[in-house]
């Protein structure tokens, strides 16, 4: 690891101020992606501004069916929150299966979606839940947030503060993990909300997380696994790597979508 300057921010505005004074600084939340990249010398920021200790960025608030999750809230906190589980167990279950215990106790929801790894779990959940990503300066709908592989609508140095969504009436996440990394080779989050059914897919798409529109339409008609019979995504639009080609991943999308719907019912 290259040497660097470390700063600890106590709130969001201080974090922004600290970062603005650096040559090539980065925000550090849980560090579960950034730190390994630094250890293998693939990333070498001049400065790290640690936001994990900023109280205003942490915590889960549930009011009726309205949910707000602070950006620096860890996966383990999401997994274990009883109030959240009462209204939206699917996101708790999803968070409980990210990575391993060490990752879940350091990694954060804000860090995950800001990184937008095409195989991360949270982007599928954000899309399916129709979440709003709140930053220091604005609110961005999930549908507009995930732009491409590791690309988001965030400006340079724009810090996510929280995520908000309305808990769906029913929902579930079905994941087929990559055998090595345990990221998703395909993860499908299905949510039946007031505005209809939304299906978020991660791990499979060549351009990152996406919504399966055909699946949503079918499930709007009938929310059952059978409603998806005969439907599939296009193999040529899927990722292909040593763990599985596009045809296999397209199959996984269909299989995991059915299993998610079955689990949600």
């Amino acid at each position, binding site marked *: 690891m290259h040497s660097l300057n470390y700063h600890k921010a106590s709130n969001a505005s201080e974090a922004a101020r600290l970062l603005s004074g650096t040559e090539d600084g980065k925000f550090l939340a849980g560090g579960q992606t950034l730190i390994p990249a630094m250890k*293998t010398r693939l990333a070498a920021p001049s400065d790290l501004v640690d936001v994990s200790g900023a109280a205003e960025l942490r915590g889960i608030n549930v009011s009726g069916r309205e949910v707000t999750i602070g950006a620096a809230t860890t996966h383990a906190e999401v997994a274990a929150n009883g109030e959240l589980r009462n209204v939206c167990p699917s996101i708790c279950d999803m968070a409980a299966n990210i990575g391993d215990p060490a990752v879940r106790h350091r990694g954060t929801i804000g860090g995950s979606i800001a990184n937008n790894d095409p195989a991360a779990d949270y982007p599928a959940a954000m899309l399916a839940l129709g979440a709003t990503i709140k930053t220091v300066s604005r609110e961005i709908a999930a549908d507009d947030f995930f732009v491409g592989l590791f690309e988001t609508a965030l400006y340079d140095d724009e810090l996510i503060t929280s995520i908000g969504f309305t808990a769906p009436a029913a929902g579930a996440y079905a994941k087929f993990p990559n055998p090595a990394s345990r990221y998703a080779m395909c993860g499908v989050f299905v949510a039946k909300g007031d505005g209809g059914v939304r299906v978020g897919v991660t791990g499979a798409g060549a351009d990152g997380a996406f919504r399966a529109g055909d699946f949503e339409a079918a499930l709007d008609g009938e929310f059952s696994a059978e409603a998806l019979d005969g439907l599939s995504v296009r193999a040529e639009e899927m990722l292909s790597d040593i763990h*599985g080609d596009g045809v296999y991943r397209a199959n996984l999308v269909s299989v995991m979508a059915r299993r998610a719907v079955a689990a949600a019912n």
Partner: protein
Amino acid sequence: MSEGIGASVKRKEDKRFITGKGKYTDDIRMENQAYAAFVRSSHAHAEIQGIDASAAEGMSGVIAVLTGAQLTGDGIGNLICGWAISSKDGSPMNMGAWSALATEKVRYVGDAVAVVIAESKDEAQAAAEAVDVSYSELPVAASIVAALADGAPDIHENAPGNVIYDWELGDGDATEAALASAAHVTEMDITNNRLAPNAMEPRSAVATYDDAEDHYTLYSTSQNPHVARLVLSAFYQVAPEHKLRVIAPDVGGGFGSKIYIYPEEIVCLWASMKTRRSVKWTAERTESFLTDAHGRDHVTEARMGFDADGRIVGFKVSTKANFGAYMSLFSSAVPTYLYATLLSGTYDIPAIHCEVLACYTNTVPVDAYRGAGRPEASFVVERLMETAAREMGKDPAELRRVNFVKEFPYQTQVIMNYDSGDFEGNMNQAMEAADWAGFAARKAEAANRGRLRGIGMACYIEACGIAPSAAVGSLGAGVGLWESAEVRVNPVGTIEVLTGSHSHGQGHETTFAQVVAERFGVPLDSIQIVHGDTDKVQFGMGTYGSRSGPVGISAIVKACDKVEVKVRKIAAHLLECNPDELVLEDSQVKVPGTNKALGWHEVGLAAYTAHNLPADMEPGLKEGAFYDPENFTFPMGCFIAEVEIDPGTGKTDVVKFVASDDFGVIINPMIVEGQVHGGIAQGVGQALLEEMVYDESGQPVSGSYMDYTMPRAEDVPSFVVEHHNTRCATNPLGIKGCGEAGAIGSPPAVINAISDAIGNNDISMPATSAKVWAAIQASGTGMAAE
């Protein structure tokens, strides 16, 4: 007795391991220690146009930047291969030069070009990144197919077409004639996937040069420190043997990958002399993937012929073996004398012919990895047997039963002479433990749950303790494969056993002590096993090929024989009895039924006080021995795997695994069971998960744990480990060895179970979920048998 042979005593070494008190090479801190960081090629094949170290040399903490030109200029020799193999036509193998630091060309991603020595690891790494190497890229051949294709780039000048050797074993004409007359011939194309060894402890070296004494000390993660010293001295000209001490302290796993003397150890020794500093290097995990010798990587075409009764009449095997960019220390022996010689399997096969074409590729060198040739042979034989049974509509177990070797000694058509065994007994035991007869009901029950269940068997045989030295010498080995031991009884009766075997997880400190405790009738705690230091142990050939039990322990037994003779003479003299009347037990040397007895410690004291010894007897109680085995040993076993497959995703779960092994006499059943567990887990990893993948440009694709899948606890079931042992007929305790068996027998058992489950014989390792799902699609419903 409770601590002797056959007792599952807890491992003496584990207290320090599980309390973090183990002392590994990276734990060694020398007073004036500096750090090495290697400048490595990011190209798979390129000419080195120039190396500009000027920026690096000016950086903070940098002591020196050293290159291959300086290394060769100082007379450091090229790396060697220790086993000479000749081609069919009698020509010697085409061995290309391998310099510890590349000079003219780089030949794989990770090839070391230069080294930075600096005050800290971070400074060394930062400066290594600043060394500017200019390359002229060359065409790349990163696979067997690419390397042997017309127009492939020559990786070494003296190996046209990238061929190292084109070797054969057995009777080609007789085999072809037998196959032509066969009632049924089964043909298969088989790939044995390339594996990265992934020892828990990365390789590490700490080298110190003492200029006052002109003496070198190397701490190293080695499975065989004496071989390392010999090779470093005799071939690399680093230092003469008496001026070089090699210490392999606690070592955290090797699996073969720490047999070899790598460029890094050579460079650290040389750099310590150049800089007059102790030089430490410890691989990061990425470097381990890039530079540890990989395993396997064979492609094979095989044909097995049967008569109308299902008896094998002939077996033809043509294998191409990937050696990587350079010939590693034992690489040449792996696909020849450790592979083709096991192709008779557990069967009486009247005609066998094996051809092996070894080739260079632009990948990291390939060498022995847990099993080394024998897993590849076992996989070919047992896949053919299972597939042949299905093709002929026979029960796979019965087909094996008909063909088993039943009388011993048995001379195979491929050199090996099996001394002992009861192959049918192991198969019967495994089938009973696995409830083979009840499988159909389990398959039906799984089908009700929407799961495809399959059962697969493998009856492996392997060969441990390469031997005898004269025979391996005649086959091209550059070393003898004996082992040495010294047994020192101290004046107070405690015992030190010095062994040339090296323990890097095997539990020698316990099992070796158990043998001596039983032999002399003394407590286990009174015995200390000393290994891993060339200044303490005079010589040894180290630990690999499951040789520490059959060869290392046999040397200890031989030294104990000599000690016992002297103990009996001393005691007989003092007790005024016949030496043959004496019994050694309960820490006494005594004549049963009489009051004639001496404490064990009294004999020791008598030997060292020398006040009253038999006439002409020298004082002291210390004996050494060299043991040269008369034959390999032949552990065998029957493994049965059951799998369940999710047809929607192709995910395979190994739900049941039964092993029935014949390891001969077992010293510590608990440790042996642990070896079997680890071996099977490794074999399941090869069968389902692990593969070192390079792309066409020679870039490693699975060079980290994000893409290289190591087996986890949840990937394996709770194993059922049984034994049906027959004594080895050729060594004193009847030991066969157990270190590799699990990894040898399990891949074919798992793959046979998958092919049974999905009704498709065309499934290769690793049987990833994607591959299994595709094979299910190819076989239609996946539920049909054929």
